[in-house]
C-alpha cells in the first residue's frame, strides 16, 4: 500500500511541483493551500507524512503544525517544513511545535527523498 503525503503550501507552483515529484516516486499525494484546509483533510484521513510551508495566507505554518499534532493519530506523524525561512530562532519554534525536519527552499530532490525514506521506511 502506498504511503500518503500531504503537501501544504499556498503556492500552486510548489504544490504541483512536489505532487509530480512525490507521485513519481511512488507516493500517494494530496495537497492543501493553507493550514485550515489541511487540518480539515487530516481530520478525515490519516497521512503518513506532512510537508508544509510557513508563510501562508491565513494560518502561519508553525501554528498549523501545533494544531496538527493535537489531532487524534497525528502526535507522532513526521512533519517536514519547506520554507525560505532559515533562522535558528524560527527553526526552534518549529521544533517546539513538533516539526521533524527543516528544508530551506529550494528543495533538492535527492536529499528530500532520502529524508522521506528515512522517516517512512519507504
Amino acid at each position, binding site marked *: 500500500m502506498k504511503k500518503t503525503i500531504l503537501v501544504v503550501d499556498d*503556492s500552486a507552483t510548489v504544490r504541483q*511541483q512536489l505532487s*509530480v515529484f512525490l507521485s513519481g516516486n511512488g507516493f500517494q499525494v494530496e495537497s492543501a493551500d493553507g493550514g485550515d484546509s489541511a487540518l480539515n483533510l487530516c481530520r478525515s484521513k490519516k497521512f503518513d507524512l506532512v510537508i508544509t510551508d510557513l508563510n501562508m495566507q491565513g494560518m502561519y505554518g508553525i501554528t498549523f503544525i501545533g494544531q496538527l499534532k493535537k489531532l487524534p493519530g497525528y502526535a507522532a506523524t513526521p512533519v517536514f517544513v519547506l520554507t525560505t525561512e532559515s533562522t*535558528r530562532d524560527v*527553526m526552534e519554534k518549529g521544533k517546539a511545535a513538533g516539526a521533524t*525536519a*527543516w528544508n530551506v527552499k*529550494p528543495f533538492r530532490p535527492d536529499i528530500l527523498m532520502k529524508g522521506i525514506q528515512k522517516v517512512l521506511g519507504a
Partner: protein
Amino acid sequence: MNGRVAIAIANEASLPRVTSALSALGFDVRATPINTWDVTHVPDGTYVVAIDEGSCPSAAVKILMELRRERPGVRVIWIVQRDVSLHSFAECQPDYVVSDAIDPDRGWDDVAARLQGKGGMADVLVDRLLESVREGLDNAFGVSFSLHALYVRAASDIETTVTTLLPFMGDTCGGHLLVSGEPAGFTDVWQRLVPGTEPELWELQDLAGEMANLALGRVSDALLQPSSSITMGLPIYMTKSTSLLYRATSSGIVIRGYAPESRLSLEVFLKFADVTATDPSDDSRALGGVLHWI
C-alpha cells in the same frame, strides 16, 4: 576626491548643468558635447564619466556600452530624464543613476555620498546580496539573471503581462521584490518544474510570486543578522501596465536583473534603517536545499 578627473557628456543644453554638478562634487571636469563623443577622450586615471541621456537615450546606451568595453575601470553616472527599461540597465550596468525628472534637487546627493564612501551599503555586502539572489534563482528555477545594484531614486514602468510584487518589512529594512515577464517566459520555467502541464495565467503569477519569495529568502540570508527576521506581506498580482516610484535614501538600494533567455525581470527595492553585515562565516542560518533534522 579633489584632483580626480570627471568627464561630463551631455547635449549642449544640459552640459553646463552636468558640469556644474560634477564640479560641486570636487571633480576636475572636462565637458564633452554628446555629438563629439569619442572613447579616446577618456584618459587613464579618469574616475567617473557622467552621461546625460538627454533627448538621445540610444546614444547614451551606445556610449555606456563602449565605456564598459574599452574603459572597464571607470565609474559611470547615468543621468536619466525618465526611467529606462530594465533590459537597458541590465545590458549597460551603470554604477549610479540620477533621475533628474524625479528629484532634481536631491538626486546628486546620493551620488556624492557613494563617491565619498558615505551612506549606502558596503560593496562587499552588495556583492554578497547579488550572488545569493542569483544563485538561489538559478538553483531553484533554472533562470540565470544578470543582476546589478543602483543607488538611486528611480521609477519603474512595468509593461509586462505577468507581474507579482511581494512587500516585506523587517527590524532594520523594508521594501519589496518584483518579478515580471511575459507568459511565454514563465511557461518555460513552469514546465521545467512541472513537466507535461500547461499552466494558466494565475499559475504563472503564482510562479512569479514563488520566485520573489525565494529571492526574498536569499536577501534575508545575505543581509540580516542571525537573530533578526523579515515579515512577508501578501503578494500583489498585476496584469496591466503600471508605474512604481521609489524614493530611496542614501541607504536605499534598487537591484535590477534581467534573464535574457526567458525575458524575465527581477527588481528588489531595499530601504535600510541600519545596515549591518553578517559575518560570512556565521553558520547560524540554515542552508538552502539541505534537510536539517531538528
